[in-house]
């Protein structure tokens, strides 16, 4: 593969606490944009995606606790039941932590496949809770996991670019 993502260098890039925090704020804001109709069905879950990114790339920094807190915030904003997103995100973060070592071996396309699987599990958890409480499942909901997985590669490239230290202008 062309992308040299799998080399360890990319995983050694620094990420300040502030940067991680800011990225989550941006993701939450993106999620809260007034999506509706079809856009809502295909809306990627930005928070889940970013969570997975940090769980696989900086497992020391972002873990299940942060995932849970984010889930609670999303629950309030989405007016879903308390703990619904929190549970789904906790499972997702756990998947990310488990996959952390393995994902470094893969290129972006292989990563996307794994990410899709993890997202599918987390979406299934959310849908399962909804089904238990309300008694029905909207199958279009799962489209979101596919669009999110498709967004994995662009998102990874974007964040890697942002994390790369600026080149010294005096160089060359």
């Amino acid at each position, binding site marked *: 593969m062309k992308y040299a993502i799998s080399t360890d260098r990319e*995983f*050694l*890039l*620094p*990420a300040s606490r502030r940067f991680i925090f800011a990225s989550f704020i941006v993701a*939450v*804001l993106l999620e*809260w*944009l*007034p*999506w*509706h*109709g079809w856009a*809502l*069905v295909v809306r990627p879950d930005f928070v889940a995606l970013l969570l997975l990114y940090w769980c696989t790339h900086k*497992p*020391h920094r972002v*873990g*299940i*606790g942060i*995932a*849970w807190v984010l*889930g*609670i*915030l999303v629950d*309030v*904003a*989405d*007016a*879903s*039941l*308390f*703990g*619904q997103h*929190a*549970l789904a995100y*906790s*499972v997702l973060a*756990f998947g990310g*932590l*488990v996959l*952390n*070592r393995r994902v470094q071996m893969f290129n972006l396309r292989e990563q996307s496949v794994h990410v899709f699987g993890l997202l599918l599990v987390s979406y299934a958890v959310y849908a399962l*809770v*909804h089904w238990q*409480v*309300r008694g*029905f499942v*909207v199958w*279009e*909901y799962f489209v*979101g996991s596919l669009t999110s997985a498709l967004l994995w590669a662009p998102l990874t490239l974007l964040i890697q670019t942002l994390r790369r230290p600026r080149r010294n202008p005096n160089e060359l």
Partner: protein
Amino acid sequence: MLEDTRALHFFNRGPSSVARLVFFSILSLLLLFVDARYRYLESTRQIIAIIIYPLQRLTALPGELWRDTAEYVSLQSHLVAHNEQLRLQHDADAARLKQFEALLNENAQLRALLEVKQRVDYTVRGAHIVYLERDVFKRKLLVDIGEKAGALAGQAVVDNQGVVGQITRTFPWLSEVTLVTDKDNVVPVQVVRNGLRAAVFGSGNIGEMELRYQPVGVDIEVGDELVTSGLDGTYPAALPVAKVVRIERDPAYPFAQIVCVPLAGVDRHRTLLVVAAESSLPPRPQEEAAMDGPRGKRMVRRGAR
């Protein structure tokens, strides 16, 4: 800048990730159970809602700005024509309103003669939609009238064509509106043509509602309009709700399958009206509620608390 890039050591970092997963999962399930069963967490939810409210408004801003700009730069001629049209409409409406007032007086007089209880008056307030639905599972709206402006759970929300839904949860500056088309949401209605009472159920699909539990031979035709009956006090009476579009009368089933479309443009408007009716219905006697069976139970406002 050096970074901690060692492999994940579970042991020098407190509990293992499996333990954490179990802990947070149990915590989530506990919250879920408490929230779904007992609804103890409304105050917590409100506090978090207040904290994130500015951010939420921020995300709604680009759309609003775009629409405002579009309005601002609309052509002068367009505006003049629109104004003219509105003025004509206003004149026509004013004439009809005069008639209506006369009728209202006459009606009041007749009711007084008959000693029938007066219909409740209701106040109407405009509200802007802040969000459309937030979740594929639930078609809900958030409007910008909250507790501070006197919104209460249970108030009906209408647009210029009919009932949109009902306020089911209030925050200090926002209210959550559950749509009439929400899955298994029930509205007590009446057929305009013959006064038949029925209940119309949401299907979960924005453009469709069902009239359930009507016998195969029921006197309902395609094109019949359904208005709220005002029974049960949930919605004020005589607000248009839906129109019948398809009837399947299959004698093999005890009930006819009647499909309606909601009249209100649930997905077409930016502003809605919140109808605050002073409910003056006496409390429902206990035995009657029990005799009504499952349907009576479902008629109780869903989500209103």
